[in-house]
Structure formats: structure tokens, C-alpha cells
């Protein structure tokens, strides 16, 4: 169980980073984990910085277990204020590690605190908890990009 509840995870759970819904934002999503009732509301704000799309902000609120709450905090640290392509790479690394059934321990250099979730891979029931905020972020980004491409079509 120590594998699961690493001190880093408990720290993020007790002192979540980036929590609270903020303005401005381009899209907002509500995701739930229907098996245990974890819920998250998540907003993303995308920005063009010198022609490069950036995740200017990710803000969130919700309720859930320590794993889903800590994962939201780590997701914020990993994705906010990052170029969009880099953020998607982080998401891919996180997903791959967590769905690897323990084969892939993650790489601390590229993943930071997110490697602490490697232990979750051994608890199939908790994988959904850990992925909830990340997949909500992905959904929100896709919606924001959809919305902006429709805006452009309108122009």
C-alpha cells in the first residue's frame, strides 16, 4: 500500500496545487468516475505565444479520493503554462505508465512528481481515479480547439 500512497501523493492531496476554478477560460468540462462518484470540473485556457499554442492555465474543482485529488494537483503542475504539444506528451507518458500494469516505472526527469503514481498501476480499481483529471484536461483542450476552429470558420 506504501507503493500507492507515496508521501508525494499525500502531500499533493493535503496541499493541492492550482485548485479552484479561474477566469479566463476557453472551455469547461465536468467528468465523473461513475463507479465511485469522483467528480471534477475543469477549465482550460489556451493562448497563442509567438505562434506556439500554450496551455496558459488549467483550473479545477471537485471531490474525490486522495488519488484523484492528488492527480489533479500533479496534472496542474505538469500541464499548466506549458506548450500544448509538450502537455500532450506529458499526458501520453502518464497514461502509458499508469496503464502498464507496473511494467513502466516512469521517468522522474521528464515526469516530475507524476512518477509517484507508478504504484497506482498495480491497483486496477484506482487507475480510473488517477486518470480522471488528465482525461478531463484532454477533453477540455479538444473542446477548446474545436470551439476556436469553429470561430475561425465563422470569420
Amino acid at each position, binding site marked *: *500500500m506504501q507503493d*500507492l*500512497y507515496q508521501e508525494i501523493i*499525500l502531500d499533493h*492531496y*493535503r496541499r493541492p496545487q492550482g485548485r479552484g476554478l479561474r477566469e479566463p477560460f476557453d472551455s469547461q468540462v465536468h467528468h465523473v468516475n461513475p*463507479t*465511485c*462518484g*469522483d*467528480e471534477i470540473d475543469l477549465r482550460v485556457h489556451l493562448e497563442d505565444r509567438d505562434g506556439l499554442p500554450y496551455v496558459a492555465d488549467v483550473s479545477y474543482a471537485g*471531490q*474525490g*479520493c*486522495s*488519488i484523484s*485529488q492528488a492527480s489533479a494537483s500533479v496534472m496542474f503542475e505538469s500541464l499548466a503554462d506549458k506548450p500544448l504539444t509538450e502537455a500532450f506528451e506529458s499526458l501520453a507518458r502518464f497514461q502509458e505508465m499508469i496503464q502498464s500494469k507496473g511494467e513502466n516505472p516512469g521517468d522522474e526527469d521528464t515526469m516530475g512528481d507524476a512518477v509517484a503514481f507508478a504504484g497506482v498501476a498495480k*491497483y486496477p480499481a*484506482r487507475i480510473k*481515479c488517477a486518470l480522471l483529471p488528465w482525461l478531463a484536461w484532454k477533453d477540455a483542450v479538444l473542446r477548446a480547439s474545436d470551439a476556436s476552429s469553429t470561430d475561425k470558420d465563422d470569420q
Partner: protein
Amino acid sequence: MTATTALAPLDVSRIRLDFPILARTVRDARPLVYLDSAATSQKPVAVLDAERHFYVTSNAAVHRGAHQLAEEATEAYEGARAEIAGFVGARAEDVVFTRNATESLNLMAYAFSNATDKARMGSALPEGAERFILRAGDEILVTEMEHHANLIPWQEVCAKTGATLRWIGLTDEGRLDLKDLNLINERTRVVSFVHQSNILGTLNPVGPIVERARAVGALTILDACQSVPHMPFDVSTLGVDAVAWSGHKMLGPTGIGCLWAHADVLSAMPPFLSGGSMIETVTMEASTFAPPPARFEAGVPMVAQAVGLAEACRYLTHLGMDRIEAHEHDMTAYALNGLAQIPGVRVIGPTDTHDRGSAISFVVDGVHPHDVGQVLDDRGVAVRVGHHCAWPTCRRMQVPATTRLSPYLYNDHADIDACLNAVAEVRGIFGAT
């Protein structure tokens, strides 16, 4: 509870020998403490042997074929029906086999939507089917403590027929708010309610509900998933029109559930699933249907599971349902008392043993139920966490989810102690204050 003092207590250490799974270890060699029987019970060897014996000696498709094996299989299947019906005080021909209680409840719900559809089209319906035809403005009444299995099928019926869903609310203690019995009126066509809540443990008063429902001619349906396995149960004394329950929560195999209904109710219902075995005559244009219970058992049924469930009924009868009830009552009192001693722990549902079963939900201040369950799992204690397929009930009780322990006839105080000790550690681990 009265008069239980005279009953001989269950010999749990002997009973446990019949359940080999209880001797296994989990998570780094911890002995398994199984406290999740409200989700599904473990199975005694006798049940597994009965299933195996059927396959080894008499396996064949029932109600078909002229050979000896088919005869024996049919006898085993219908014999199982008689045994299981007897276990709940019913006549064999009034018991329909389904996959589980969810299917039993859907079977009842579909009787309404199918009858309504067919009436609209002017299609043939069984005699007496009028009581299943719904019109806009008709009402279906459930309670705010239903398992999704007795909620969503009725939401679906309403969406298809224009009927309105209403529900009896709950008190803060997690009992039915009986003031809401006033919701039963002449437009009420169905009152479908849970006997014992799988999340709150509350045992609901069947008598007053049935009395009001009868007075307005509403059909009454009881979800008895959490009562048939745990207490003496007799369909003929409850006064309801139909009862649904699952085999796997009462020591039986998965894949079999039951629906009991009054003969005149079953015979007035149009079929649910259709195909082989449920017909009387078939032409290319149309068919007529077999009388119940065959009308509701399309296709080759779950014979081995029926045989296994019948054996489970014998096993339970042999121990005595009154003794099982008394045993659970004792464990419920013990667990409620123990939980009350742990700081930061709150029981969701009745906190005394009056009209209450052994499923006990609780929350731990500052720690999510999923994390509570994980700590318990680490100590070998198997409980369920989440909304227990009763999401609206959680909302009403103002909790996102709960942790639930649910003992059965093979558990004892040592199991409850293991659970309580683990619960007492939880807040320390998460630094909750």
C-alpha cells in the same frame, strides 16, 4: 428483535469450513476478512458440488429432446424451482428464473411498457393486461433509497409511456419518510420499493405501504435482494404482488435470479424476451405464448445455476433462517457499537438495530471512502466503497460515497474487530484532523 434468545447460535468456525475461499490470504499473506456479502456472498462447497454433479451426470437442454438425459435435466430444473419456491413460501409455477434481480425488475417494468406499446397498436394482449397499460398522468412510485436496479427501469418506463415517476423521501436517519405515503393516490399504478436497503441497511415497513397501494389498486413490487438471504421470508404473508431477488447474494451461483408474482399478475403480463421455449404455437405471421413461468423464460435456461441455488436454499434452511437473522443482528449491534467508538466515524443510515439489517455504511471525516477501502484492503478486509448503485441515496444523505461492511453467516466478531481496527487507523494514515 424478540424471542431470538432461545435460538442456538451459529457455529461459525464450522460453517467457515464449508467456504474454502475464506481460508485464503490476500495482499501479502493477510488472512481474508470478507465483509462484502451485500455485493455477493461466497458459495459453500455443497453448492459448487451440486452444480458439478448436474454437469457430470445429467447435463442436457431442458424441456426439449426425448432422451433420458433431457428428462433428468428437466427434472433437476423443475425440482430446483420447487425447492427455491418453497424457500420463500411460494408455489413453483409462480417463480420465474431470470439472470439476476436486475433482470427480474426489468421483466416487471417491461410488462408495463410492452403492454402499453401493444395496446397503442391494437395488438393482442393476455387477459387482464389492462392493469399494465399506462397513460400520461399515471404515476409510478419508488423510494429515494432504491438500488439503481429498481429506479432506472422505472425511469425508462416513464420515458416510454408518459407516466410520472414519484418517490418517497428519506429522513436524515435514513428511513422512509412515511408522510410521503400521501403520494399514493388514485393515479398511482405501481409502487416498487426496496425491502432492505443495500446502502443504509434500513428495513422498510411493507405492511403500511402495501395497504395504501392496495386501496388505490396499484401493483406492488418488492426488491428483496437484501432480505431473502438474511431473514425468514414468506411471499404469502407480505401482501405484495411481486418480489425480485438474486441467487448470488444467498450462497447461490451467479447468473440466476428470481421473480415471484401472484399467478393472476404473471398471467396478465405480456412476454419480456421472446424466442424459443416461451411459445405455445408459432406461424410465420404470429405466435401465441406459453403460460407462466415458461412465458418469461425464453431460450435454454440456466439449469446448473438453478440446481446450485436450490442447494443453497437447502443449506440455508438447514442452518435456519431465524438463526441466521439472529446472528446477523448480533453482528450488526457489535459493529455499530464499535464504529461509534472510533473518533471521526459516522454511520450513514440507522445507528441502532431496530428494523435494520447488517449492511452498514459509514464515512470517515476527512478521508474519502475509496481511501478508507484501500487501507482496509491492505489489512485483508474486503468491503465495498462507492455509491453502491444508489447514487440518489448518497445525494440525499449528503455524502459523495460511503464505505460499507456487510457480514453474513460465515462472519464473526473477529472479522468485525479486524475491520474496526483498520478503520481506526485510517485517519492517522491520511493525516486527517
